[in-house]
């Protein structure tokens, strides 16, 4: 349905034309969020600049291996802003190296950070923002209402972090007006979903990217609470005409149909993650730091480069090979997400070819609420056109 009265989520810069390279610059974080998949947080492991330099040299000097037209240099942690000095030095070296090699990326690159926002107003961070404003994206994670946010996003003491994050949202939105936030929903915060999305809209965040966790956390009856929350959210977005300027990724016109293609859902393997020791991974979910049950899968390191044999399974993954018969023939499969790292962590053997399907009932609940949302919205818009 094309309708100028409905806001659209911001498009991804260069989409699949860009390579994303993620530096895990630290394993430290001020918070101990309950749902965080990073299981090995510590205060002593940080990336050395030399490691980053070797990785950048390898990537920029091997154009034949990395033919993408554009690149996103992404920084995560832990909490990346704890290492803003290091990130600043790495970014300066990236710009120097791209120019020195006359690489096409010099004209087509972005820096990207994902942060808990606590340090956002600090002078060093603000200097970094000012210096790189033209090619910088920063995402701040805020989970919704103070009640929902503080349920999981807590300091080691157990104290919630809402106030310290929310304090910086106005500054962040002033500098990045179209920015979206990423919200994670687990079992015990389901009753807060509707209020939380609306709270974020009220804070001025117009685009809320939200998903339920992939892990084995869902309990009997959760899907009913979830569906009820989404129906309430649908009513409040439509009745309040919030759809004209806001988006919530739970509602999409493209979900809930049988799937006709055989593509993999996630971009693992096309991305590259570098950890503090300089090991390469197909994405950050395959680092030792992110896996609870399985050994990490490295695909090389910054000194020897990529082992392309290790990359082949990731690049040849398709929907059919990793899905059960039930998933392959599911009538509402489109939009049903999976995380390759979580799949691997939960698989019966050491394979990435087995989908974890813990969120099956949650997806079906989402599809029912989504059908309701679009049905009601279309009728409302049609009725307005007739008047």
């Amino acid at each position: 349905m094309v309708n100028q009265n409905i806001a659209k989520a911001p498009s991804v810069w260069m989409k699949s034309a860009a390579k994303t390279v993620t530096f895990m610059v630290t394993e430290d974080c001020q918070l101990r969020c309950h749902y965080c998949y990073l299981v090995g947080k510590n205060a002593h492991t940080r990336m050395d600049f030399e490691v980053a330099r070797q990785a950048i040299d390898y990537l920029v000097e091997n154009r034949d291996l990395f033919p993408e037209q554009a690149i996103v240099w992404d920084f995560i942690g832990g909490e990346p802003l704890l290492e803003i000095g290091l990130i600043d030095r790495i970014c300066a070296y990236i710009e120097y190296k791209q120019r020195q090699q006359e690489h096409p990326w010099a004209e087509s690159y972005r820096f990207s950070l994902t942060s808990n926002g606590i340090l956002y107003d600090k002078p060093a961070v603000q200097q970094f923002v000012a210096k790189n404003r033209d090619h910088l994206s920063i995402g701040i994670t805020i989970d919704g209402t103070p009640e929902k946010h503080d349920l999981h996003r807590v300091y080691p003491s157990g104290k919630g972090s809402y106030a310290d994050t929310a304090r910086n949202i106005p500054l962040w939105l002033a500098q990045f007006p179209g920015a979206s936030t990423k919200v994670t929903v687990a079992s015990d915060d389901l009753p807060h979903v509707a209020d939380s999305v609306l709270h974020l809209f009220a804070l001025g965040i117009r685009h809320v990217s939200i998903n339920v966790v992939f892990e084995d956390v869902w309990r009997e009856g959760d899907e009913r609470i979830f569906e009820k929350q989404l129906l309430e959210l649908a009513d409040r977005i439509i009745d309040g005409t919030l759809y004209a300027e806001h988006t919530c990724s739970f509602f999409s016109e493209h979900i809930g149909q049988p799937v006709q293609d055989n593509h993999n859902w996630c971009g693992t393997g096309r991305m590259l993650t570098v950890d503090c020791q300089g090991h390469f991974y197909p994405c950050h979910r395959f680092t030792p730091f992110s896996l609870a049950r399985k050994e990490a899968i490295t695909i090389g390191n910054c000194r020897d480069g990529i082992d392309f044999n290790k990359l082949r399974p990731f690049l040849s993954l398709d929907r059919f090979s990793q899905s059960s018969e039930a998933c392959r023939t599911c009538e509402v499969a489109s939009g049903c997400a999976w995380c390759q790292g979580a799949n691997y962590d939960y698989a019966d053997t050491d394979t990435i070819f087995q989908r974890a399907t813990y969120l099956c009932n949650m997806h079906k609940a989402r599809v029912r609420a989504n059908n309701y949302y679009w049905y009601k919205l279309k009728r409302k818009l049609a009725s307005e056109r007739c008047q």
Partner: protein
Amino acid sequence: MPMIKYLVVILEPAAASFCYYDVKPVPSSGLMPLELLRRVVDHAIRNGLHINFVHGDSPLPEEYVRLVESADHISIMPPGQNPCAGGTVLVIDDHRLEDAPALAENPCANIILRVGRDRLRQLSGMVRQLMGKFGRLNIILKDLAQFEEPELQICREQMVVIGKRVAAEYRKGNFIEISTLTDRIFLTNMNNCGAGVEHLTVAPDGRYYLCPAFYHEGPEHSLGAFGETPRLENSRLLELDYAPICRNCDAYHCKRCIYLNRKLTGEVNTPSRQQCRIAHLERDQSRQLLAALPSAIDGSEKIVPIPELDYSDPFEMLTRRDIDGGAKDRHFASLLSRPLEAVPASQLLLQIYQLDPGLLAKLKQMTPFALDLKPKK
């Protein structure tokens, strides 16, 4: 649980390697316990399984020989052993070729020749040395995991020389088989190792393994004790349908070695670059050999020419960004359906109906031009 058709039974820890793996020194020595062998043979007979016995250099005592001969079997053994009744496959390692006792002329013999990286340049010479002594020669490039461009180039040169010799033999009416050159010519579907799908291995330690290579990797790779149901989790990944690269490939003779897959790519269903490159190199040499022999082969009118490809690894084609998904689908569909091209459509549709009647309905749904859309008068 897949339909296992035969068991590979390793009679002693140091039994000869007949494939890519190396036999690693193991603490225990001696033959598989007689009682275990008796149970294995009994199990095979009761379940209609054939057995491939893998022998070492130790001569079998009389009671072992009686047991081995009581089952339908093939014996895979190094030269110098006394062949048992039943089929025998001789395994010759390149470094033992000169030491091996002179092999008798035997146009029916089945030989496995294992060649290492350091002797690749002598491959065609080894084949020449063995001419007249085999009806089928299976060539195993035992260091394939370490192959890079120089080794592949040597293989190509050696295959050209061997191909000329094979062509000459075919023109004389001597239809010898050399796995890397002639198998692809006669195949219309994947015909691979089949470990875990068609066969399982029972080792002297009394455990099941996917194949002998996993036995030599250590007991942690075991599928459980013989006598219990083998633990084959995610066994679908051993099947062709669940191997995204292989199911789009027509190098039908490829070993698709799950041990090398696991070792080099981390996944049993994903071949390494080395496996794909060598299989395509052999495929291309087979293509050239077939093209040079238009009518020398019996039944040649039924043999489908092997198309020339502009890639040497199907993974390259699958991941190319300059070709859209539809064009790739058309390419792979054309490649894989080539042996069916001459079959009348009505015959194909009948076969589809016999296989899965529901598939006809799906085909009709997907093919709108089959509908009569003319307005009714």
